[in-house]
């Protein structure tokens, strides 16, 4: 049986739904040393801001049961460097459109970054990160406020013709309301979820393990939360949803797509197994065959 794994995001055709998530894959260069990136559906590149950022103090990582907390703080070389160096390097090894994940500390900064990414031919989707929990005055402060999400989405839509996906934070009381604000403002799709705000304490020193005290919790432990939110948002909006949060195997991909995801992003799993995406892509056809799924896109949102 030939299994059709292809899917679509706002007119962008993907060979399969598997996309490494922003911040867990760099710009692909390290992974290209161990497998051909062209097997991937797309790649969401490391979150980019207008200016270069070092990010937060160390430690930035704390382990948890079935996951980890990170507080990197959007370390990146700045949009000029990314456009002039990282994206051209990635283009040499990856011949499909990428997802440009951008972040900002003001509406103007989101607009500036979107305007710059709009002109880059190998950018297929602009993903607006309004959900970073690790920076002050940006990220999550936008994503937890319906009006702010509306404002950022509308402003970005005005300066780009590329599909705009809004990446949402789960740290809100009503994820559906936020998603609807993004859709109303003209978003072409929704990415969810970013990490859950979390914390660990070193019981020997009484101090938080993370220097910034709190950070974003990701990994298999958050999968049920992500799945529930994707399910709720997919039911409420009429635009595609990219589902992410703890996906670690082909079974999780199927489950997330049944909940309503048109494509998925793989995050923490890349950190502990650099071949995670490759293995998932190899396992998907076998699993589809077992489940008698001929065309993967048929299962999107199939769960009542």
């Amino acid at each position, binding site marked *: 049986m030939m299994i059709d794994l292809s899917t679509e995001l706002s007119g962008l055709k993907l060979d399969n739904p598997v996309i490494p998530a922003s*911040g*867990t*894959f*760099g710009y692909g260069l*390290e*992974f290209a*040393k*161990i497998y051909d990136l062209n097997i991937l559906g797309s790649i969401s590149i*490391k979150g980019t801001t207008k200016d270069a950022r*070092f*990010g937060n103090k*160390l*430690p*930035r*990582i*704390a*382990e*948890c*049961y*079935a*996951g*980890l907390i*990170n507080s*990197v703080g959007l*370390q990146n070389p700045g949009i000029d460097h990314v456009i002039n160096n990282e994206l051209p390097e990635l283009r040499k090894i990856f011949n499909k459109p990428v997802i440009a994940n951008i972040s900002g500390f003001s509406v103007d900064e989101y607009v500036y970054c979107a305007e710059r990414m709009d002109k880059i031919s190998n950018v297929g989707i602009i993903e607006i990160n309004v959900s970073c929990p690790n920076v002050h005055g940006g990220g999550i402060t936008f994503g937890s406020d319906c009006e702010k999400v509306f404002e950022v989405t509308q402003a970005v839509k005005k300066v780009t013709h590329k599909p705009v996906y809004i990446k949402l934070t789960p740290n809100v009381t009503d994820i559906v309301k936020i998603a609807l604000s993004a859709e109303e403002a003209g978003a072409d799709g929704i990415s969810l979820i970013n990490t859950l705000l979390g914390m660990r304490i070193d019981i020997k020193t009484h101090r938080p*393990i993370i220097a910034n005290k709190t950070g974003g919790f990701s*990994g*298999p432990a958050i999968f049920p939360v992500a799945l529930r939110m994707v399910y709720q948002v997919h039911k409420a909006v009429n635009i595609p949803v990219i589902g992410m949060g703890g996906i670690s195997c082909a079974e999780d991909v199927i489950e997330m797509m049944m909940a309503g995801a048109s494509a998925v992003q793989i995050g*923490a799993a*890349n*950190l*502990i*197994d*650099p*071949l995670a995406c490759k293995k998932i892509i190899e396992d998907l056809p076998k699993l589809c065959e077992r489940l008698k799924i001929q065309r993967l896109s048929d299962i999107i949102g199939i769960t009542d």
Partner: protein
Amino acid sequence: MRDINFKIIENKKIARDIYKMILAGDTSDIKNPGQFVNVKLPFQYLRRPLSVCDYNDGELTLIYKTVGSGTNFMSTLKNGDVLSILSGLGNGYEIIKSDEPVLIGGGVGIPPLYALAKRLIENNIRPEIILGFNNFEDVFFEEEFKALDLNVKIATLDGSYGSKGLVTDFIKNNQYAYACGPLAMLKAVYKKIHDGQFSFEARMGCGFGVCMGCSMKTNSGFKRICTDGPVFKYSEIIWEND
């Protein structure tokens, strides 16, 4: 970098909370002393980054300290058990031609200096060895370095073994230093010498340069301890929070 299955052929306690594990498997990804591996353990989400103590055709030696549930579990593993290990991570030490360099290690910073000492000897360089511990119960690898026919000096904080004091008490002027140990030790060594290489440690997410969990500022820009390091040259290092 490669994910390789290694089979345990020895796992024994060699000092207080310190274990030596020898594993059989493909070590060809390890090119330099001072590189590390990232070990996957059952029931632990993140891998455990451990410096390579020794490597040769098909045999990998790791020294680890039991500090939490992961390494405690590791100490219970038996011969024949198999571990998934990301091998050949980080840059490692560069062999620099110099007269009588000194290798300075503190606690679990000592292991990578053993393979380094062997490589230096292969290059006809005979380093001096300075090892620092808290107490006599913590001392390990003195005999192994002596077996390489090297001059080994030991300092303990409480004076219960070797000389009472710090590793820096033994450093002579103008010696080229290769150091690995706690941050406070590295800083103290840095102040006593004029050139050398320093191995840093950090809590890591991936260990291969993609999560940006272990970045540090250097004179040549932002670097990742896991991939651009863990070994940094004297001239690159900036000490923050001084």
